[in-house]
């Protein structure tokens, strides 16, 4: 079945999108949410389990204090209020990979609520309201064996409970309105910046491909200017930043085609298919689904002490947007330069290079020029190149003191990428240092003049610009290891 889509321009002419993003983050605590089992990813199936996370009769949960701390830190970083008193609740539904057939979660008493995060897209800032961030446990993982790959139509299914009970934080936005054509980009930027924030907090591995950060995209359209909210769909299985953007755009076009045709969008769960770039209908999500929430009687209510919360707040890392603003001002970067630096994932690298003594513009030049080109060629991230900010700063220091020129410096980077040692070791081993022996240099200049009499005559006639050819000849003889400025001086001394 192929969905009918409306062109993106037509969507925007007729409708206002409303976004809602639900992000599940697996915390990187050493143990699970309610028991002492390990959370290490990739272990053999059902080896990291105990009576509690298997939901054996009689077992009881005990809250992981570290997970609560992480939840509070996430809440604070998202400018949320932290509940003075809150509880866990049971979300009741049957599914084979859920050991107790209820998920221990939070319902109307989340630990963090009512916050916001500013998201920047192409120079415009969108404030995304945060409805809540609550704690819950992950389910087991089902693998359906058979042609469909889904539970319906499977020959049989395998369940791995290693994941059951891993602490999750679910972060739910308020409806995000007013993004217009930029809705897909805002959705992507929100998840991307949230990911950076969580990484900065050190609370999660945030690896979308491993499922430690999972995103559901809620989308609805309303007639343009109506100020109302339409019927939404919830798209699951959106497992990369690019998919967040594509899935949002796809649903906007799909909804619009239905609405433009006078139809009604079905409120349902959709599944995103990365390979084909479409969503398909999942189970119908209606009001009939009743999770029968009630407070978890096996856990006592939590009342995070205000002193503790304030201490955690004081210890938070600088928020990413504030850090960017501060660094931009300190470095004197233009908006474009800053955006490129952030976009290349070079903010921290540039910052450390500057801290090691390099000027901001020079640090930017190396990372976003030479090194970005090499990362691009080898299809790796800048941070994974094998060149450290300290290396870059040292190379630039050698340039500044006249031991290297830019061309030689690039050869030092070749050595660094090949793992030949420190910049100084590479300079020594490859014999890259600039020759400052005036005798050798003078001899080379004399050779060049003698070998190019026509050029020498032009310079004698006042055409100083022709000196380039002689400088080039000298540099060639010196195998590049000469200071070009000194060579120019020597040439002009002799011919003018």
């Amino acid at each position, binding site marked *: 079945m192929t969905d009918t889509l409306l062109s993106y321009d037509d969507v925007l002419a007729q409708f206002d999108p409303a976004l809602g993003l639900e992000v599940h983050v697996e915390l990187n605590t050493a143990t699970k949410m309610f028991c002492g089992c390990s959370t290490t990813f990739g272990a053999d199936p059902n080896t990291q389990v105990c009576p509690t996370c298997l939901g*054996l009769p009689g077992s009881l949960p005990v809250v992981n204090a570290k997970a609560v701390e992480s939840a509070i830190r996430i809440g604070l970083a998202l400018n949320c209020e932290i509940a003075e008193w809150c509880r866990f609740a049971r979300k009741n539904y049957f599914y*084979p990979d859920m050991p107790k057939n209820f998920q221990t979660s939070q319902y109307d008493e989340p630990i963090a609520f009512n916050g916001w995060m500013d998201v920047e897209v192409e120079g415009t800032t969108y404030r995304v309201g945060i409805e809540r961030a609550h704690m819950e446990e992950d389910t087991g993982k089902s693998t359906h064996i058979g042609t469909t790959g889904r539970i319906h139509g499977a020959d049989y299914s395998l369940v791995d409970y290693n994941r059951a009970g891993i602490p999750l934080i679910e972060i739910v936005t308020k409806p995000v309105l007013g993004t217009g054509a930029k809705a897909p980009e805002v959705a992507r930027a929100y998840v991307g910046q949230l990911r950076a924030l969580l990484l900065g907090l050190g609370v999660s591995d945030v690896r979308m491909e491993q499922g430690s950060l999972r995103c559901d995209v809620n989308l609805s359209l309303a007639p343009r200017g109506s100020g109302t909210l339409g019927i939404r769909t919830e798209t699951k299985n959106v497992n990369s930043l690019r998919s967040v953007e594509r899935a949002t755009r796809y649903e906007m076009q799909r909804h619009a085609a239905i609405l433009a045709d006078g139809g009604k969008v079905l409120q349902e769960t959709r599944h995103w298919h990365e390979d084909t770039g479409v969503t398909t209908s999942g189970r119908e999500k209606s009001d009939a689904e*009743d999770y*029968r*929430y009630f407070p978890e009687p096996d856990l*006592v209510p939590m009342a995070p002490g205000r002193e503790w919360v304030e201490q955690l707040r004081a210890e938070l890392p600088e928020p990413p947007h504030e850090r960017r603003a501060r660094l931009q001002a300190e470095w004197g970067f233009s908006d474009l330069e800053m955006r490129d630096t952030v976009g290349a994932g070079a903010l921290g690298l540039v910052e450390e290079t500057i801290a090691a003594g390099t000027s901001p513009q020079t640090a930017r030049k190396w990372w976003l020029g030479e090194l970005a080109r090499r990362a691009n060629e080898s299809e790796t991230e800048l941070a994974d190149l094998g060149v450290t900010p300290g290396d870059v700063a040292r190379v630039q220091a050698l340039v500044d003191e006249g031991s290297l020129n830019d061309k030689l410096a690039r050869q030092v980077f070749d050595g660094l990428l090949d793992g030949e040692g420190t910049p100084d070791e590479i300079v020594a081993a490859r014999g890259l240092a600039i020759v400052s022996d005036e005798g050798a240099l003078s001899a080379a200049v004399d050779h060049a003049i003698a070998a190019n009499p026509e050029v020498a005559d032009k310079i004698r006639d006042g055409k100083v610009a022709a000196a380039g050819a002689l400088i080039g000849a000298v540099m060639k003889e010196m195998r590049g290891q000469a200071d070009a400025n000194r060579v120019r001086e020597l040439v002009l001394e002799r011919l003018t």
Partner: protein
Amino acid sequence: MSPERRTAAALADALAAGEATSVEVTQAHLDRIDEVDGALHAFLHVDAEGALRDAAASDARRAAGESWGPLDGIPIAVKDVMATRGLPTTCGSRILAGWVPPYDATVVARLRAGGLPIVGKTNMDEFAMGSSTEHSAWGPTHNPWDLARIPGGSGGGSAAAVASYEAPLAIGTDTGGSIRQPGAVTGTVGVKPTYGGVSRYGLVALANSLDQAGPVTRTVLDAALLHEVIGGHDPLDSTSIEQPLPALVEAARRGADGDLTGVRVGVVKELGGEGYQAGVLARFEESVELMTKAGAEVVEVSCPSFVHALATYYLILPAEASSNLARFDAMRYGLRVTPDVAENGAGPSAEDVMRATREAGFGDEVKRRIILGTYALSSGYYDAYYGQAQKVRTLVTRDFAAAFGHADVLVSPTAPTTAFKIGEKVDDPLAMYLNDLATIPANLSGVPGISIPSGLADEDGLPAGVQILAPAMADDRVYRVGAALESLLAAEWGGALLDQAPPLVEEGGLRRSRDHGGEG
């Protein structure tokens, strides 16, 4: 006196004095089980081998001059609702047929650490839902006083085992009276500790906010000894109380002198009168009279919200139970029923298996309460039912607080009637629920309570019980006052009430039921 007739405290003294060995004592109880349990059906599983092995280990320890505590070597029976590593645990349900837990409940771990050999697992109403043990999937337990009658429930197996000298001690669990009511109708002692005083880890939950494990014994002192072994903080149970237990054995010993001078005893107006059997009330009034004579200051207190306690209980309990029992879905353990689903040639789905298993594995009472609880938690009904019940629960707690402002302990009959006949109320759930009228308020509020025998009702000659309640964390008070009343009553009777029970074994074999020749 043969070993199985002696109290746990007396057996402990005998073991310490070298007059008996744990193996002898344990074997005597296993022999008694062999002799009478065919008629009683108090046990679902007997572990003679394991019990004798642990008894021999206890004897070896003692020979080496070591002891793991005051009850080291004393055999015990455990209600089948507690997870026991390596021993079947069915909760009286078909759905857990054959399940052998890979872990011990904290209570069981503490019994093992205290050196108590576990002789077996006792019968119970399925998932502790009932007041008669008739709802066990494995058939009812019979009351040792009259085999045609129920031994109370849900812990009828533990009470009958102790009353019939199959074990000196047993573990019960009390959600709305399942330790105290069986105690009352079998002439034994049962204690529901303060909520959080004994770990719930490994207790297969009926209603998490109400469940509490406790001692089932023949004397108050034995209960205190056992309570001190199993009680105290457990980091595996978040609802476990961190403070240490009060000195319970000391309180029981102190109370044994029968002196109640200065103790304020509150008689709860709402727990008596209409609906209570005359003989039960008469024995209760005599107990109050004895306490007055012993120096207690008796006052009447009113707890008006108690009249709503039963209704409140039957909203909270099914709600929690409906969620707790969801895990029995055939996916990981227990019964699995695979239905034939031949339409379009496809095999049964996971949902089909879940449905068929739950249909076949749960009894009617369990299904009734799952449906009630599911309804009470449903969207649109939550506030009217579960939410409202929690508010009444707060009122019950306030009533207790007010009453304990006037009295150190509160007293009432434990159960409104003596043991009824097997089959009499099994088809009348509401009549069955009324058995717990007097015991439920303590569970709703978390306060501790004890039931001790108050005598035999005139109408039927069957045992009745008196309940003594104390404020949360003041479990020592129920032991002190319970021990005092126990000794005052023993002086009246010239011995223990159980001495008046008809013998289970007569010449020529087992005694037959008084009313129904066919029983037993």
